[in-house]
């Protein structure tokens, strides 16, 4: 108990004093995960749109696959990316392993199925008349698609927030393909894993507090977004 309260006190000192190492780690976490979600989201939403509106053979198996892939553990994604980017793997020449780009790739793969599944649910719930109205009023298909996305923007935003929540807290893939290199690929979750393994609980608690605050903020944002969606 003595160690918990002592470490917590030290943790808040670290946070408030603006410990540069700690805030670098926080910055890397956000920059990597934001880039990952920005890369994954457009494609995921288009895939979700096609799955929600088009009727083609293999649609249901694809949906099931995306639903199932949400449950893939981060370490499995990490292992896959590792094997692909390793010098003995097919993309070894790119020399991407142990860089932020490798982490981004892992996180893109991690959040993609979740984004597709949640966006699909939002788009599926939309009235089919939205698409037909856009088309009959002369919108070309891609503009009609943007219109339907705009109609369910709150649902899509909720999907993005959920996706971001998943990757910002993910440790398995980032540790494996990023390498936890200080100042380059060490983000909040891998830093927590490391500080705990060193017995440096204060740093771990401080970083955990940042993640917790973020989770709270995201959930509140999600609640507000859903509230607005229901109001409209």
């Amino acid at each position, binding site marked *: 108990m003595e*160690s918990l309260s002592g470490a917590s006190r030290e943790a808040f000192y670290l946070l408030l004093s603006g410990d540069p190492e700690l805030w670098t780690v926080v910055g890397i976490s956000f920059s990597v995960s934001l880039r990952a979600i920005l890369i994954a989201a457009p494609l995921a939403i288009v895939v979700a749109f096609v799955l929600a509106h088009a009727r083609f053979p293999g649609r249901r198996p694809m949906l099931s696959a995306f639903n199932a892939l949400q449950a893939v553990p981060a370490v499995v994604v990490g292992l896959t990316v590792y094997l692909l980017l390793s010098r003995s793997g097919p993309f070894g020449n790119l020399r991407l392993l142990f860089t932020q780009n490798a982490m981004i790739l892992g996180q893109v793969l991690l959040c993609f199925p979740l984004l597709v599944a949640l966006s699909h649910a939002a788009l599926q719930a939309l009235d089919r008349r939205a698409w037909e109205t856009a088309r009959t009023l002369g919108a070309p298909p891609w503009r009609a698609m943007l219109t339907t996305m705009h109609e369910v923007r709150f649902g899509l935003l909720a999907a993005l927030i959920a996706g971001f929540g998943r990757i910002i807290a993910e440790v398995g893939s980032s540790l494996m393909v990023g390498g936890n290199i200080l100042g380059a690929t060490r983000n909040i979750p891998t830093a927590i894993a490391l500080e705990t393994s060193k017995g440096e609980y204060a740093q771990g608690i401080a970083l955990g507090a940042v993640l917790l605050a973020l989770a709270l903020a995201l959930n509140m944002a999600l609640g507000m977004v859903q509230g607005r969606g229901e109001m409209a």
Partner: protein
Amino acid sequence: MRNCVALKTLLRASVLTATALLVMATAYAQSGVVRLSTTTSTENSGLLEELLPRFEQRSGLRVEVIAVGTGKALRMGRDGDVDVVLVHAPAAEEKFVANGYGVNRRQVMYNDFVIVGPRGDPAGIAGTKDAAQALARLAAQRAPFVSRGDDSGTHKMELALWRSADVQPAGQWYREAGQGMGRVLLMASELDAYTLCDRGTWLAMHEKLALRVLVQGDQRLYNPYGIIAVNPARHAGLQYTGAMALIDWIISREAQELIRGFRINNEPLFSPLAVRGP
């Protein structure tokens, strides 16, 4: 009146709970389990699997091994989460005892470290006898170096070497990985980088790596292991007798011979320190 009854019930319940906890704690202490925190490199080498079953058979005690980094292993001892600690960081061990967290420290054995790097050795340190000089050359050429960066025994050894080389390692070329030895070796191999490695992990993994041993044999690369019982005065319910039995056995002639005979890929890994030479 009712309040009084409620209070009595509460009291009785707390007494019962406390008694139950006490009984459980005593039972645990007497259940014949000794908890040992040690470094991952010790666990990974397979040495403990060789040593511990014989001790368990002889003493009737069971040893639970918790393999973590040196920093965490010592921290667990300090917090009373384990009964005995087996690590390799002499300075930290001495401090641990000086602070009163541990008692009866004994030297057990040593192994050595090697500096490994890309097969082509672009920095040209192969064959250097002085480890610090080799590191200084790496720093001068900004050759990529992967550091454990996890406060482990190996990390502490590496930092001590940089100090002897009078170099403050920092910059793009110096990458603090904050991971275990195996992962750091894989990273060094992928990144065409140099690193410091204990011989045990190197022997277990070198076939998978695009690396080779470049520097070895320096006195400073020597890596002694110590075993320390957690101070029973600081925490209730520690298995102190069990811990001492384990320490006694580890430094016995029999166990020391087992350590000397332990091989990976037909190469000896550890040299006993408690009982030297036959």
